[in-house]
């Protein structure tokens, strides 16, 4: 199928729109989850949604998305409260509490699923698709439910932006200002649960946490402002959603959710490696340039020391003398410095081998290096 046909396809358009919507909401709320060090909470909420889906089906008697999502939201929030309770009332740390709640709710969910599946006439419910998501099952009416949920979530974040910002950065100070920190905590967690529930049909329980964590982690690499991190995370999320859904539609049979997560992982990997100030590569290059700068300065200083010691401004030092003064081999550094016109190579007959002399430009570079911590110029 080529792109034009794809874009005209009703089902494909529905799936792509749903995936984009999910990407935006999970990007924005994932930003808060990650910055609050609650990355794993999304995973717990997603797994905890499973029993709610089954219960929603049992109550509604059919596969009605609003009922399933309402059940999912309720059981996810219940799991979040259980985590909060465990942390507050017992000596459990957050990660252990999250792990316990996650597996407990997931186990109950799987049991309920098998129970529903075993009931007569319920075989076609296809609830097991919520484990890994099944994008193709999304109907246009489902899309409206998703859009309404997404609208509520995004409007809440916009309305409570400054409160969420402060509670995320400095909850103690927020409490000192008189903000209702506990209420804001619960609200933010509930909104994360909404994002999770939005993704159940598309991405499924198992991979949902990636939708929350990856866009935020990728976006954080590129900017230092909270608002921009959230917007960028939404863009990464939406782009991955569209990309995954389109590729999946083009190559029938490939699961949409995992493709979306793969696209997200690519964005994240690229951001972790290439982002200008925080990326691994720029950081490594900067460190290398620093080291090179130190080496250059050491060699220039050694030449300077040697000529002072000989009381001869034009003194040319033997390579071995420079090595000994610096403390390690300096051949390569001397040759780069020569290329940059900071030192020159001279024959010093009748002795064997080459000698090195500090030039005026080298002297100037040494002077500049003394003024500040920066390496001599001309080498990045």
């Amino acid at each position: 199928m080529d792109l034009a046909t794809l874009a005209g396809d009703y089902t494909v358009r529905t799936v792509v729109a749903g995936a984009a919507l999910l990407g935006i909401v999970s990007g924005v709320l994932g930003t808060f989850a990650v910055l609050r060090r609650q990355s794993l909470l999304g995973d717990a909420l997603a797994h905890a949604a499973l029993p709610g889906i089954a219960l929603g089906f049992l109550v509604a008697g059919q596969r009605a998305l609003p009922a399933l999502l309402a059940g999912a939201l309720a059981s996810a929030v219940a799991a979040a409260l259980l985590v909060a309770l465990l942390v507050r009332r017992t000596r459990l740390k957050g990660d252990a509490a999250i792990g316990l709640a996650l597996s407990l709710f997931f186990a109950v969910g799987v049991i309920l699923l098998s129970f529903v599946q075993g009931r007569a006439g319920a075989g076609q419910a296809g609830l097991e698709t919520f484990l890994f998501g099944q994008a193709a099952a999304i109907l246009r009416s489902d899309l409206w439910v998703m859009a309404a949920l997404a609208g509520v979530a995004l409007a809440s974040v916009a309305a409570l932006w400054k409160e969420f910002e402060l509670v995320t950065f400095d909850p103690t100070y927020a409490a000192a200002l008189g903000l209702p920190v506990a209420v804001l905590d619960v609200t933010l967690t509930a909104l994360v649960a909404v994002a999770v529930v939005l993704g159940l049909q598309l991405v499924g329980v198992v991979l949902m946490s990636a939708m929350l964590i990856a866009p935020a982690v990728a976006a954080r690499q590129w900017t230092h402002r909270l608002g921009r991190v959230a917007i960028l995370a939404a863009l990464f999320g939406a782009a991955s959603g569209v990309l995954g859904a389109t590729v999946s539609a083009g190559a029938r049979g490939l699961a949409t959710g995992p493709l979306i997560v793969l696209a997200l992982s690519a964005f994240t990997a690229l951001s972790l490696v290439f982002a200008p100030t925080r990326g691994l590569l720029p950081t490594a290059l900067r460190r290398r340039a620093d080291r090179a700068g130190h080496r250059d300065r050491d060699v220039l200083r050694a030449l300077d020391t040697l000529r002072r010691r000989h009381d001869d401004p034009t003194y040319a030092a033997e390579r071995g003398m420079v090595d000994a003064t610096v403390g390690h081999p300096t051949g390569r550094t001397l040759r780069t410095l020569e290329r940059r016109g900071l030192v020159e190579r001279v024959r010093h007959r009748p002795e064997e081998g080459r000698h090195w002399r500090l030039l005026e430009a080298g002297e100037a570079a040494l002077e500049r290096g003394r003024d500040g911590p920066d390496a001599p110029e001309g080498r990045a």
Partner: protein
Amino acid sequence: MSGGAAERAGGPGGPVHEPDLAVHVEDLTVTYGSRPALWDVDLDVPPGVMAAIVGPNGAGKSTLLEAILGLTPTTAGHVYVGGRRLREARGRIGYVPQRTAVDWDFPTRVLDVVTMGLYGRLGWLRRPGAKERRLAETALERVGMADYRDRQIAQLSGGQQQRTFLARALVQDADVYFLDEPMAGVDATSEAAILDVLRDLRAEGRTLLVVHHDLQTVRTTFDWVVLLNVRVLAQGPVETTYTADNLRATYGGDVALLSGAADPTANADGAPDPTPDPAYAPHEGTRDA
């Protein structure tokens, strides 16, 4: 929060108690498990003083600030700020927490952090605008950080972080300021800048309660002192309260800590009392919470 019923009984304004004191604390007790962190603390701080809260490690100095500000659950006690219960006094209180309390890699700029001091006053649904930005800029100038307004907070030194937090409290325009170790681990420039601002605040008639670690500078910097070691051992004007005897009672007779801090003649009056204070000695060796 304790005393909710009493607050309702007092009507919309709430009850007024000891309005002539900037801070009035009765029977404040905080326990972690069975171990008391603060025991029956009574505190009276008159307005317009700069009070140092000093005491050994684990004496509950930070806990005292947190308990007064309602940031940690209390077992017993009442707190009045300017004669008002905490809930009605929030707008008159400024707080500078320890700078290590937050993640400085958070994606935000110095000016944004300072603006956060106005979030309590702004109210729901209102975004900080040009007026709030101006207030934040003025506060940054006061702490000598005007040039850093657009700096990402991860790039600040410890002293600059502390000054940023101080500026955030300044925009609160409070009557009573609570500061938790504002001079701990900061460079000389920052310490001087912070001290200048604190003295200015006192000169404006505001009250400051400062958790302080440096016994040497209590006399030169503060005019009021609270000696704390789970209980309040002494409180009052520095000249009459900051004595060797009181310090010894607070620090359990650790003379090395006291050298130079107190009156040298008072230090020479015999060996320090080796017996620890019986009020909290039984709790030693209890497992930490």
